């Protein structure tokens, strides 16, 4: 059961780049992706800065090979999952049972919104092709079919921790010998439903978000997709290249405090982080970098920070919220940040937390304000905290 699981491929698309190399370049040169909304038709385009992928649906369809009329969520997923799958260079090994575990919070709702405009005037109206892929599972199927993966297909949806749980589920499918290889992560596109939902909750910053800043005002939404290819030691031994790192630990816990906010003392995030460390057999001082959930809302940062203070005390590792670059990509965020965590180990780099001016006074630690390099980033912790109290943490370790 305790077979190690390794990261052998990665793919990402976000507001800062259309592939892993572009995302890495932006993260290292401070290229931030949050701007006025250009592609999504919404009344809030001038008011609510967001990190859109800098491609139209038509451009995305050319790259993904999917119809331009299909959900943007599927096209983003396709591009990142294909990149990860190609990067792993694993298809040539015969007889592998392969799974695709994808996550999404809103699935094809970007098309359902168009359908509903017509449907609400007359229930006989609205193009059915705009609603047929409404559910997140359909988005996963579209991508699985194009990747040619079919041994195990599943979809996870636990709000902002969705793709962390997809990665955990994928790893466990390998450990239980149900599949040999898994492409796991998540996708979400910016859409009016989610944008307006977060706006009614009054958690969106009308300026650029400032995670973990004393004067933070909220989050900026983003969109994108991020996937890892995970496999066992046995399959790694058949590959030409070494794995990037190991997924050495993970833990899923619930905060059970409130439907949309996390407890001020950070019980859920604390349980997730300490559980993931225990699963990896690591002590807090072994962690070299924390990729924070760090949305920039009052509630998230106080809760996550309280949990970090409790767990790490005087051994604070370097930490940053890369949502200051990509915005909060919701169901994709843990997948994208799993890729960034892998890059931190691979390239020995700790990314900066942009726009941090005044660190939160409640804590005796502060995220990194400048990029730093260290050849020995051994263990990286990545946090995800979502609606419904869903908290999951992942630990990636150098091999």
């Amino acid at each position: 059961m305790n077979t190690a699981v390794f990261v052998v491929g990665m793919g990402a698309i976000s507001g800062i780049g259309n592939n892993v190399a572009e995302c890495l370049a932006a993260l290292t040169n401070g290229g931030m992706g949050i701007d006025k909304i250009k592609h999504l038709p919404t009344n809030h385009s001038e008011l609510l800065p967001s990190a859109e992928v800098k491609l139209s649906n038509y451009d995305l369809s050319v790259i993904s090979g999917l119809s331009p009329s299909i959900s943007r969520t599927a096209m983003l997923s396709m591009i990142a999952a294909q990149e990860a799958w190609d990067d792993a260079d694993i298809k040539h090994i015969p007889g592998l049972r392969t799974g695709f575990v994808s996550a999404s919070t809103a699935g094809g709702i970007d098309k359902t919104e168009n359908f509903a405009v017509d449907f609400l005037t007359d229930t006989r109206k609205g193009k059915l092709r705009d609603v047929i892929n409404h559910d997140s599972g359909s988005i996963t199927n579209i991508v699985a079919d194009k990747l040619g993966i079919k041994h195990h297909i599943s979809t996870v949806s636990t709000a902002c921790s969705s793709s962390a749980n997809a990665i955990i589920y994928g790893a466990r499918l390998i450990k239980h010998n149900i599949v040999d290889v898994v492409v796991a992560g998540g996708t979400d596109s910016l859409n009016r439903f989610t944008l307006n939902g977060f706006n009614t909750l009054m958690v969106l910053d009308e300026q650029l978000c400032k995670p973990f800043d004393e004067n933070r005002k909220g989050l900026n939404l983003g969109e994108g997709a991020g996937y890892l290819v995970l496999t066992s030691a046995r399959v790694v031994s058949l590959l030409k290249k070494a794995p990037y790192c190991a997924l050495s630990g993970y833990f899923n816990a619930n905060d059970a405090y409130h439907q949309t906010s996390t407890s001020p003392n950070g019980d859920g995030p604390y349980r997730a982080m300490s559980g993931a460390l225990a699963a990896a057999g690591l002590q807090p001082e072994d962690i070299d970098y924390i990729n924070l959930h760090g949305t920039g809302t009052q509630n998230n940062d106080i809760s996550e920070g309280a949990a970090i203070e409790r767990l790490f005390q005087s051994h604070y590792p370097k930490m940053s919220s890369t949502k200051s670059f990509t915005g909060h990509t919701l169901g994709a965020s843990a997948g994208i940040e799993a890729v960034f965590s892998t890059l931190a180990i691979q390239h020995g780099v700790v990314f900066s937390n942009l726009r941090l001016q005044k660190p939160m006074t409640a804590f005796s630690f502060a995220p990194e304000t400048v990029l730093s390099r260290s050849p020995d980033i051994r263990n990286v912790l990545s946090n995800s905290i979502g609606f419904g109290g869903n908290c999951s943490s992942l630990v990636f370790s150098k091999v």
Partner: protein
Amino acid sequence: MKAYISSAITISPQKTFKNPLFLDEVEVYTDNRLTCIEPDYSEAIDPRLIRRMSRIIKMSVASALACLKEAAVAIPDAIVTGTAYGCLEDTSVFLSNMIEYSEEPITPTAFVQSTHNTIGAQVALLIKCRQYNNTFVSGGASFENALLDAMMLLAENDNSNVLVGGMDEITDMSHIVLSRMGLYKRKPASNLDLFKTASKGTINGEGAAFFLLANKPSSRDLACVDAVTTFYKPTDITETANYIKTFLTTRAINCSDIDLLITGNNGDTKNDEIYAQIQTSVLADIPSVNYKHLCGEYPTSTAFAVWLGSNIIKNNAIPDALNFKPISKSKINKVLIYNHYQNTYHSLILLSSC
């Protein structure tokens, strides 16, 4: 790895909730939309909370809480749910308001509750369960993945239990949209006659079902889950047959060991042809029953089938509602559920007596 089902609760279009009698009477529907028979929730849920909950949340939370009570478990070690469409009513309320008010600020309640993990989260919040919590939205394999997750958790952790559920609701909007897609019968007849005439389309259904699974036996167990598997878009009937054959042979099970097959026939000619072919090949000569005349067709209907199968094992009896011809076997030990949802996701769930 065996999982012991220590309780099974469902709210369905039949009188299944808090009913000591096992399907002794059948609710008849003449429309192509079967609606859950809802209980008085005030016993189970705080009335102040009920007001804010949509129908699927109420049905699911009530089933989950009743399931825990029945199993005498206060806080389970994990909560896992599966739902293809999630909280559809809240989704369409927020969507409609957003369009109607041209993106002006509106109340966030429906948005908050539209999140797919709302049910798992609400149950966790009500009982203060800070453990593992996960939600699958895998179309016609949503409940199966929740069940598989639960089985893996039980294998990973000694002496543990998992609350696992499957749920989907019909809304006015979803019924119209899915009808326009041609899923349902144009000339609906009684649900009791669903399998009598060959025609296109099925009947729409819904339900919420929860199970408390444990990796240690207890005196109240209904049955055991021996295995669950899903397979995706088989290219032809041979691939389907081979998958089922492999499932059985790897577990050293012969067809003669299976006392009852529960199949997912839904009355649609093309859909049901797959079951007919499988029942004349790899699953030939196993006594079988259908269940979708009772609950309708929906992506998580296998949760109803597990409730049905585990109660059949526990009672060692097949209710008349299933139109079953009596068999010679005196004891029902093994029940296999085979379902496919629109030939995309196929699943096998094997139940046995404990």
